[in-house]
C-alpha cells in the first residue's frame, strides 16, 4: 500500500495523523537477530525498547510477538516528540543500558523516515562502548563479538568486546512474521512504562526545523528535432 506523504499546511513537518505506523524495517532485522541469539542460547533475555507516544506500544507488542521477553516504553509526546531526534534517543538508550546492565544493544542502522543513521553511533559514544555498525553477520565468541560490516569497498570484519552496540543492515537476516499464537502470548508479556525524566534525560533539542517542503513537481520534458536545437535550448535556460 502506498501512503502518499503530505507536508503539513504550515510547512512544519510531514502529516503523521491517521497514517499507519509500523516497525522500522531495519529495527525488525535487529529484533530478529536478538531473538535468534536468544534461541541459540547465547544471550539470556531480550528487552524491546521504544520511545514515543502511546501508539509505540503496538510496535513493542510486535517485537514481543517476534520473541522478545519484555518491553520498555519510554513515553515522549507532544512538542518533545516532534523535536525528538537521535541525540535524545541515544541518551535514553545509554541510560537504560546502564540501568538494565545490558551487554548488547542492537538497533536498525537507520530509520527510514529520517535516514539519520546516528542513534547507534551516538549511543556507543555516550556509553564509551565499542560499535559494530552496518552489520551483515554477527557471531558471539565468548566475551567478544565478531561483526562483518557492509562498507563501500566490500565487507569488513571486526572483533569487539562486549558490552557493545550493533546496528543491523539489510542482509543480516530475514525477519520472521509474527504469528497469531505468538501475538496472543505477547499480550501477557510485560511492558514497563517510564518518562525520560525518570532516566535523568532532558529532551531539549539543539536542532530547530525551519521549514519542510515537497520536492518541486517534475515538469514535462520538451522534444527537439535536432542536436542544434538541443544545444540552443540548453544555452537558453542556462544549463550550459
Amino acid at each position: 500500500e502506498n501512503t502518499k506523504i503530505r507536508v503539513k499546511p504550515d510547512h512544519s513537518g510531514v502529516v503523521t495523523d491517521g497514517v499507519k505506523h509500523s516497525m522500522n524495517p531495519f529495527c525488525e532485522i535487529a529484533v530478529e537477530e536478538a531473538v535468534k541469539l536468544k534461541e541459540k542460547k547465547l544471550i539470556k533475555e531480550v528487552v524491546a525498547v521504544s520511545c514515543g507516544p502511546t501508539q509505540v506500544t503496538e510496535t513493542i507488542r510486535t517485537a514481543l510477538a517476534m520473541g522478545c521477553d519484555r518491553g520498555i516504553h519510554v513515553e515522549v509526546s507532544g512538542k518533545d516528540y516532534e523535536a525528538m531526534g537521535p541525540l535524545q534517543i541515544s541518551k535514553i538508550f545509554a541510560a537504560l543500558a546502564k540501568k538494565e546492565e545490558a551487554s548488547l544493544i542492537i538497533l536498525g542502522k537507520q530509520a527510514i523516515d529520517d535516514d539519520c543513521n546516528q542513534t547507534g553511533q551516538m549511543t556507543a559514544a555516550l556509553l564509551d562502548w565499542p560499535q559494530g555498525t552496518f552489520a551483515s553477520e554477527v557471531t558471539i565468541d565468548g566475551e567478544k563479538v565478531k561483526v562483518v560490516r557492509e562498507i563501500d569497498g566490500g565487507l569488513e570484519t571486526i572483533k569487539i568486546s562486549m558490552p557493545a552496540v550493533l546496528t543491523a543492515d539489510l542482509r543480516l537476516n530475514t525477519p520472521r512474521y509474527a504469528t497469531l499464537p505468538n501475538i496472543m502470548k505477547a499480550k501477557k508479556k510485560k511492558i514497563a512504562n517510564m518518562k525520560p525524566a525518570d532516566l535523568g534525560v532532558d529532551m531539549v533539542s539543539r536542532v530547530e526545523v525551519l521549514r519542510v517542503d515537497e520536492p518541486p513537481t517534475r515538469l514535462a520534458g520538451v522534444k527537439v528535432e535536432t542536436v542544434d536545437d538541443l544545444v540552443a535550448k540548453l544555452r537558453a535556460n542556462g544549463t550550459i
Partner: protein
Amino acid sequence: MSGGWERVIPAFRSVCGEDGVSLGEAVREQHGRDESVHRCRPPDVVVWPRSVEEVSALAKICHHHHLPIIPFGTGTGLEGGVGALKGGVCFSLRNMDRVLDLHQEDFDVSVEPGVTRKGLNSYLRDTGLWFPVDPGADASLCGMAATSASGTNAVRYGTMRENVLNLEVVLADGSIIHTAGRGRRPRKTSAGYNLTNLFVGSEGTLGVITKTTLRLYGVPEAMVSAVCTFPSVQAAVDSTVQVLQTGVPIARIEFLDDVMIDACNRFNLLSYPVAPTLFLEFHGTEKSLEEQVTVTEEITQANGGSDFSWARDAETRGRLWKARHDAWYAALALRPGCKAYSTDVCVPLSRLPQIIVETKEDLMLNRLTGPIAGHVGDGNFHCIMVMDPNDQDEVIRVHEFTERLARRALALDGTCTGEHGVGLGKRALLREEMGPLAIEVMQGLKTTLDPKNLMNPGKVL
C-alpha cells in the same frame, strides 16, 4: 484518432483531473500489453480514476459514447487480457490503492485495485495474518479476482474463487453493485445467486472490479521445505496423489521435469540431480510439521524417491525455492534471444502421469524446448515454451503443440486453463471445453450485463 474524442476527453478530465487522462503514445503502449506473448494493442486513451464514483462517472461517459472499457491492474496477466482490440478507454486503477476495513478477528480485509498481493501482506505483517494466494507476480488483488488466479499453494489455501467474499463492481452503464451486498462479509452464505463468483474470473468482460473483500489466514507458525528426486514422472506424481490421499495438509507441491531442473541448475549454478523432482513445503506447528514430514517421506521413499534436501529457516528456504521461482528465467536462458510462452492445462490428479508423459513425447518429436514446471497437487502444470519469434516455422509448431496439449487435457476431463484465464488466445478452446449450451448461457449473461459489449471486447467469449 477520429472526431468525437474532442467532446469525450474534456469530459474525462473533468472527472479525474487534468493529470488523470493521458493520450501519450508511450503511456498507451504501456497499457496495451501484459506479460504474455500477445502483441501490444494500445487503447486510445488511458484514465486514472481515484474512486469508485469516478470509475462510475467515466463508465457512464463511455457507455453514452459507445467506447470500449478495458480495466488495467498491474499488467502482469499472461493471456493478453488488457489488449484494446477495438481501441477504447483503458481504466488504469493503480491510484485506487487503499487497504480498507481490516477485520483481524474475522480474518477479512477489503482492498482497492491498486493494492498488490505483496503490498497487502506487507501491510498485514504485524497482525499475524496473510493472504496466501501466490500467482508468482506481484499482481493487483482485484486483478487476481478478475482472472481467478491461483498459485503454488492453492493445494492448501485454495484459489481466488474460494477466497473472495465480496466484490464492488462498476458495470458498463456506470451502475455500482456489491455482489454479496454492501459491506457484507460472512464466512459463508447461501443468499441468492453467487454473483461474487460470476465476476471472479470474468477477466474484465462483465464489469470493473473496484474493491474486493478477501479471506485471510493465520501466518503459519513454522514452515519447512524439501526437495526430492524421483526415478520417473510416474513415481513423482504417484507420490503426490498418495500424500494428498493420506490427508497431509501439504502447502506446496511443485513438480519440475528433468529439462527444467537442468535449466535451473545452469541458471542458478546448482547441482540438483537431473531427474523428475518435487519441491515440497509444509506449514504448521513444530509438532505437526514433524508428523507431516514423516508421513510424506515414507511415501516418497516407497516410490523410489531420494532422501530429502531440507530447509527450515527463511534464508535457506528462500534459496531452495529460488530454483523454482526462477524457472521462467532459467527456461529463457536456455536459448538467449528467445521469447517464452507458458501453457496452463489442468487435469484430474490421476490423469497427470499420462498427460505429462504424452506431452514430453510430443515436445521431443516436434523438436520443441518446453521445460515443465507444475502445481501437481492441483493437477496443473506449465510447459514453458521457449521460441524464436523470428522463426516462423517454430512459432507455428509451438502454436500447434499448445492446441494439441489443450485438447489432450480436455480429453482427460480437464481444462485448457487452470489459472491464467482465457484472455485472447483460448476462446475457441473455451467453446470446446464448455460445449455450445453452456457457452450460450455465458453469452446470455454477458449480453444482460453488457448489452453494448463495451467491457473488454474480444476476450473470453
